[in-house]
């Protein structure tokens, strides 16, 4: 087993001072949503860390997650983190390498304990033929990659919950990594879900940094998401929340309320049921997030967000049109009228069957 250098050794070799390392750790703590007082602990952990091998598998996806990550806004922290890991396979980034890339993947898989990152869902219908890489189905490739893996990080809503490929009617039989494990189709390993369409880049790196720094799975919620980033709903952290509580709502996207930045609940904002870090971490170098730009949250970090009714229907309104209402009304009226005839017939029968009682009858 070749000895990989520790991160501290790596940095020292690059001429990085302790002060710079301390700064990096402070930024990393902020990235991992840890209190700033954790920076020394991070420094200590990173000092001992050896560069783990990482295999990135892109399946049925749009490359948005990779785009999000590679265009993330804090190159120093991210590049340092990617200096910390040994990214041995990423077929989108290595497409030109062809068979050499596939060889690198197979080599990396020989040494157990690597981390598997997955973006995209996995098609299962018809033997999984709807998405293949170098002639291997996604399902087979995931199965092989998980065999010796330490853990798997499902990056993006597709890998975490099936996402858009799984949306109704799901023609390819797309499933999430967790679903495949639950059905026993791939080996069971610890899963960290980092959903979002795409996830916030600093959340991706923050989760990776946490796993690499502390060598353990962070605390997860019931849907497998790290609570440090997905612990609060958008609504609870939203700067427009006071407007909701005051009952001040934008009714259209260009009315007085919209211009004044009132709550977007009635315009279909899914903030109350969506768990993500957008309201605090924000996007594009902390510039803003969708609600700050005047558009409601679409709930992209939740399972089945694509099938949860219109993005512009309020959360308390019906997700689907009420198709049964008219026929139910007609059927109700028909039964009601029918019953009234039955009742009238009963009354009529009672009336005609009525016999006048005489004194003689009573004396019986």
């Amino acid at each position: 087993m070749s000895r990989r250098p520790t991160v501290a050794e790596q940095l020292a070799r690059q001429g990085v001072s302790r002060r710079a390392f301390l700064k990096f750790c402070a930024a990393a703590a902020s990235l991992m949503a840890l209190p700033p007082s954790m920076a020394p602990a991070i420094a200590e952990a990173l000092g001992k860390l050896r560069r783990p091998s990482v295999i990135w598998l892109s399946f049925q996806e749009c490359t948005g997650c990779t785009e999000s990550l590679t265009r993330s806004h804090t190159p120093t922290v991210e590049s340092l983190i990617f200096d910390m890991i040994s990214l041995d396979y990423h077929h989108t980034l290595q497409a030109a390498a062809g068979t050499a890339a596939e060889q690198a993947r197979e080599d990396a898989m020989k040494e157990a304990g690597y981390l598997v990152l997955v973006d995209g869902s996995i098609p299962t219908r018809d033997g999984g033929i709807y998405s293949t890489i170098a002639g291997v189905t996604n399902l087979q490739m995931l199965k092989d990659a998980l065999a010796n893996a330490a853990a798997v990080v499902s990056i993006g809503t597709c890998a975490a919950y099936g996402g858009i490929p799984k949306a109704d009617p799901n023609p390819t039989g797309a499933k999430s990594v967790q679903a495949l494990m639950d059905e026993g189709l791939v080996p069971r390993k610890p899963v960290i879900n980092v959903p979002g369409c795409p996830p916030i880049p600093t959340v991706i790196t923050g989760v990776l940094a946490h796993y690499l720094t502390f060598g353990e799975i962070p605390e997860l919620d019931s849907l497998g998401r790290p609570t440090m980033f997905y612990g609060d709903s958008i609504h609870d952290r939203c700067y427009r929340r006071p407007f909701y509580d005051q009952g001040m709502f934008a009714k259209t996207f260009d009315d007085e309320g919209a211009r004044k930045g009132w709550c977007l609940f009635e315009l279909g904002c899914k903030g109350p049921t969506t768990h993500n870090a957008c309201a605090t971490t924000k996007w594009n170098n902390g510039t803003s997030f969708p609600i700050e730009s005047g558009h409601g949250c679409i709930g992209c970090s939740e399972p089945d967000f694509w099938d949860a009714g219109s993005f512009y229907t309020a959360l308390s309104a019906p997700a689907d049109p009420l198709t049964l209402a008219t026929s139910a009304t007609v059927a109700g009226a028909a039964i009601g009228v029918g019953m009234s005839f039955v009742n009238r017939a009963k009354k009529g029968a009672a009336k005609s069957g009525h016999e006048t009682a005489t004194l003689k009858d009573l004396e019986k």
Partner: protein
Amino acid sequence: MSGLEGIPIHIQTAPHAGANAQAILAELETALQALLDTGKEHSIDLRSLPLLPGELDYLQHTLGTGEVRVEIDALGKSDVRETAYRGVWWVAHYNTLDEVMAEFIEVSFCPDIVRAQRDDVRESLDALSARLAGNEE
């Protein structure tokens, strides 16, 4: 990124505008007391708070500018400024592209990042000793 200032956006704040900033100021008050009593340092990560648009500016304006300003050049710049309230420091870390990586308000007599680190000092000592012994080159 710099074009944002050119767009005349009129930001209207929520009915309770400044509540988050007020809470931070109260936290700083407690932290200063703790620094005097026990010497315990405190740090607030400004990136982890759901600040309203304009609240960061309000906070910066309220805390004002103090006497000390330190610029550190390590993996990009870092800007350490004492505020008008001595012992309260505004610390911004930039990357090599001059984008903000992390921003903190620290309460301490001197932020840790400014001090020379022990291991670095030891290395410097070794290097200097080696030089005096004529061992270099």
